[in-house]
């Protein structure tokens, strides 16, 4: 540790370590994040903060010195960013890729800081860090001023409901601590930030590298009279729990250890609850009374927001995960249609009409974005027309769910107003969303119950309804086989109906073109029609290229097991091109058509189709017989 003295001098503090563990005077803690554009000095700032608050152990400091020699970006000196950039790839590239969570305490307060990446590609990781923070430390490089990414991060910070921002104008050492420049940046930012709803906004001039105004006031900024960053973080007042809100608790898990106990486990999202309180079980709206609040320590007289408890109701009733228990006199609204903000986080763009899973509170339901109302230009706050949302886009959309949920607008309650969008196939978290308001109240909305249902009609028809969904490349032989199958079923006296791609486009879907969004809508409408016909008791034969797995999954969703049969007409592209029954491949080759499935647009072959037909080995007639044999095996026809 020969250079430790030099390091300490450079760091501007005499003592390198002190007590890492502290017991602060204040009981609570502050959760904040650092954000801003790439290389503005976020990780360096937090590393410096940890160092100066003596939150580092000796061995961690020794490792830091070692790493600084190996990977450092600041020559001989300690590179404090390396404390935060804990992944190999980050150290090698000198940038932050994913959010890092660090914990420290001073004698006044405890902190959890999320150091997030500035690189635009990793915006979703910044959003991850912001979603649990109460305050944002937004950095700007004094030489560059407010840039695009500063504005994008500000926008996300505001969208996620953070109301307190510290604007850190960093690298002041590189502009000779110029007061004019600092004020200029401060002003530019304040102008931009009006309308973002920040309750407090403080600007601090710093040098993270040399420690100016981080924990001790800098002599090089005599013109700055405000607090240091640490002094401010230690004292800023943050109201974390909204007071006076009515009781809500999403049910997480039904606790049923034996026949004599049935409790509903969950964390109180807002308000408070006591035994004998009248509540409603949402979305159904059934009335109930709380009889006991059970915990390992015994029964409680009261539970409040944030408490993880188990509630027992006075009467046995049907309550399951995803239901929300709410104060009877002031129950949460219920709906299945919302206006919402989305931050898109997947490489695969959002397409209106495609089916996703939506997780809101403890409930996961199918749903789709029915319309993208607009995309937001994060620089100008301008609303732009959009058919798709791409990675890191922010937009306002209409969201439609397969079943209604209890909710609150995000501005009123973060727990009941937030949701994530999950891709049905890859399971990735594709977006973060916040509910603005309901598009219609769903309180009285139930599916019209009909006395004559599908099974009654099926019994009368002597067949089980089904949807045979033929998918495959253009020219694979879908329509040919589908027609043969229908002819054979008809000959057996079965009730069938064929939905064919070309025919549907002449009527029902006349208004749709061939953009990706229109293709999705085309399939969605056809799938809905197929479901209605199946409900009417028919065997529906649909033949559509339907190149995307997600769209076929959507067509399948909501149907009982065994109703939807995916029939993959498996013909290699070379064979389709050779057959070319409609002359389309020739046109593609001549450059007259583009965006053609299998050639320059993807075809995602089914992974587990119920039926796979190989057209190179068999005749169309033999394949149609194969389908019929399969239908018999499944008991769809006798």
């Amino acid at each position, binding site marked *: 540790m020969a250079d430790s003295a030099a390091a300490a001098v450079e760091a501007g503090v005499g003592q390198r370590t002190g*007590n890492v563990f502290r017991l602060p005077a204040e009981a609570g803690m502050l959760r904040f994040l650092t954000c801003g554009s790439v290389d503005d000095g976020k990780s360096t700032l937090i590393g410096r903060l940890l160092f100066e608050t003596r939150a580092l152990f000796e061995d*961690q400091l020794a490792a830091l010195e070692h790493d600084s020699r190996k990977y450092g970006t600041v020559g001989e000196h300690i590179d404090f960013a390396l404390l935060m950039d804990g992944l190999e790839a980050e150290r090698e590239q000198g940038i932050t890729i994913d959010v*890092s969570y660090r914990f420290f305490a001073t004698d006044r307060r405890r902190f959890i800081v999320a150091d997030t990446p500035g690189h635009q590609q990793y915006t979703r990781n910044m959003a991850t860090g912001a979603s649990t923070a109460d305050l944002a430390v937004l950095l700007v490089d004094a030489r560059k001023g407010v840039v695009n990414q500063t504005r994008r991060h500000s926008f996300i910070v505001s969208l996620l409901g953070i109301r307190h921002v510290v604007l850190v104008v960093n690298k002041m050492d590189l502009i000779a601590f110029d007061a004019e420049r600092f004020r200029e940046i401060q002003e530019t930012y304040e102008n931009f930030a009006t309308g973002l709803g920040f309750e407090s906004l403080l600007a601090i001039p710093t040098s993270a590298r040399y420690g100016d105004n981080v924990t001790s006031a800098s002599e090089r900024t005599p013109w700055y009279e405000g607090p240091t960053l640490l002094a401010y973080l230690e004292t800023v007042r943050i109201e974390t729990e909204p007071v006076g809100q009515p009781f809500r608790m999403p049910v997480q898990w039904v606790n049923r250890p034996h026949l004599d106990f049935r409790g509903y486990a969950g964390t109180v999202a807002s308000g408070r609850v006591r035994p004998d309180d009248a509540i409603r079980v949402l979305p159904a709206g059934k009335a109930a009374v709380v009889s006991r609040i059970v915990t390992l320590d015994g029964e409680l007289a009261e539970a409040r927001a944030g408490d993880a408890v188990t509630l027992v109701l006075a009467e046995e009733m049907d309550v399951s995960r995803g239901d929300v228990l709410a104060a009877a006199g002031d129950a949460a609204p219920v709906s299945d249609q919302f206006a919402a903000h989305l931050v898109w986080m997947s490489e695969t763009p959002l397409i209106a009409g495609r089916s996703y899973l939506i997780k809101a509170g403890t409930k996961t339901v199918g749903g789709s974005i029915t319309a993208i109302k607009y995309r937001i230009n994060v620089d100008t706050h301008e609303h732009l027309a959009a058919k798709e949302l791409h990675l890191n886009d922010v937009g306002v959309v209409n969201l439609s769910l397969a079943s209604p949920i209890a909710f609150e607008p995000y501005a009123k309650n973060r727990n009941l107003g937030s949701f994530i969008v999950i891709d049905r196939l890859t399971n990735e978290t594709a977006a973060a969303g916040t509910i603005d308001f309901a598009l219609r109240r769903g309180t009285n909305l139930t599916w019209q119950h009909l006395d004559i249902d599908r099974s009654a009609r099926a019994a009368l028809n002597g067949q089980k309804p089904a949807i045979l969904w033929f998918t495959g490349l253009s020219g694979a032989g879908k329509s040919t086989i589908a027609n043969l199958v229908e002819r054979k079923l008809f000959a057996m006296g079965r009730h069938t109906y064929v939905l064919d791609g070309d025919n549907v486009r002449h009527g029902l879907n006349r208004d749709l073109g061939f953009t990706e969004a229109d293709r999705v809508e085309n399939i969605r409408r056809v799938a809905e029609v197929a479901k209605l016909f199946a409900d009417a008791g028919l065997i529906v034969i649909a033949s559509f290229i339907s190149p995307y797995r997600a769209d076929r999954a959507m067509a399948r969703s909501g149907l009982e097991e065994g109703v939807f049969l995916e029939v993959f007409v498996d013909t290699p592209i070379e064979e389709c091109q050779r057959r070319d029954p409609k002359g389309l491949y020739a046109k593609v080759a001549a450059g007259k058509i583009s965006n053609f499935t299998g050639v320059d647009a993807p075809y995602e072959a089914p992974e587990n189709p119920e039926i796979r037909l190989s057209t190179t080995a068999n005749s169309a007639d033999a394949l149609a017989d194969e389908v019929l044999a399969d239908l018999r095996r499944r008991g769809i026809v006798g």
Partner: protein
Amino acid sequence: MPDERAASWPESQGQDLQSGADGRARRRAALSPHLKRLQDESIFIFREVVAELRNPVLLYSIGKDSSVLLHLAMRAFYPARPPFPVLHIDTTWKFREMIAFRDETARRLGLELVVHTNEDGIRRGVNPFDHGSSYYTQVMKTEALKQALAKGGYDAAFGGARRDEERSRAKERIFSFRSAAQEWDPKKQRPELWSLYNGRIRDGESIRVFPLSNWTELDVWQYVLAEDIPVVPLYFAAPQPIVERDGQLIVVHDERMRLKPGERPEMRMVRFRSLGCYPLTGAIESRADSLPAIIAEMLGFQTSERMGRLIDRDEASSMERKKREGYF
């Protein structure tokens, strides 16, 4: 100095210092708002996993973090028992006190305990002396764990890791996705927003879940004290036969310990900050024989908890590499 500190604790858990020699407090005080919040957030995580995944398991390493983990699980599902088994990877090099404590804990809490050892490693005689800590850990811990998870068909595994332990852990999600090969890809973590954890996986994939992500070492001990949670006696100072190696105090725990020429075990008052395989775990010199004394002593610590773990010092970025391969 530590005692003055303890006497002036602003938080309620400091008021109850009437502990016996076993370190168990006699009266339970209300939790501080900070610990209460950590506790309730962890309980939420436990419940989400049980509600969303098919077949979870709790990885029980017998240490203090595991003790807290189990206690939180008992709280989360009360009056039911935690609806998952508890898995211990036995390298056969644990302290006897740890194994006894493990069996006693499973009995006391009525848990289903699954113990797994990499039999192939045993047959090949893999041990920490001949094979080096890195290879030994790979075979007897990482490989063993993967075998056990595959054998049990578990799709979620709770672990007691905390983000304050090490800087690659500081990067990990609470719900941490593992591929079908049980590998972690730190560059492709799922975004994790609010407390909306995404537990959806395909066959063969799994989730490692870390309910203690936001706890610090100090939080853990304060919680152990406040909640009167039993921990392995090795955490409390006692005389042990010690040899000093690479600056570490190693307990000569049984006849399998190989002494180097010139090494002579010497009785010293020590305790452990972190527990693992005895030849690889350094003790610290201490007189702290109760929970309040441990906490008071911690306030003066100058080195990190993982200093006592030889396995972390093999190479730079060793933790990240081990984690990518499937280590907890």
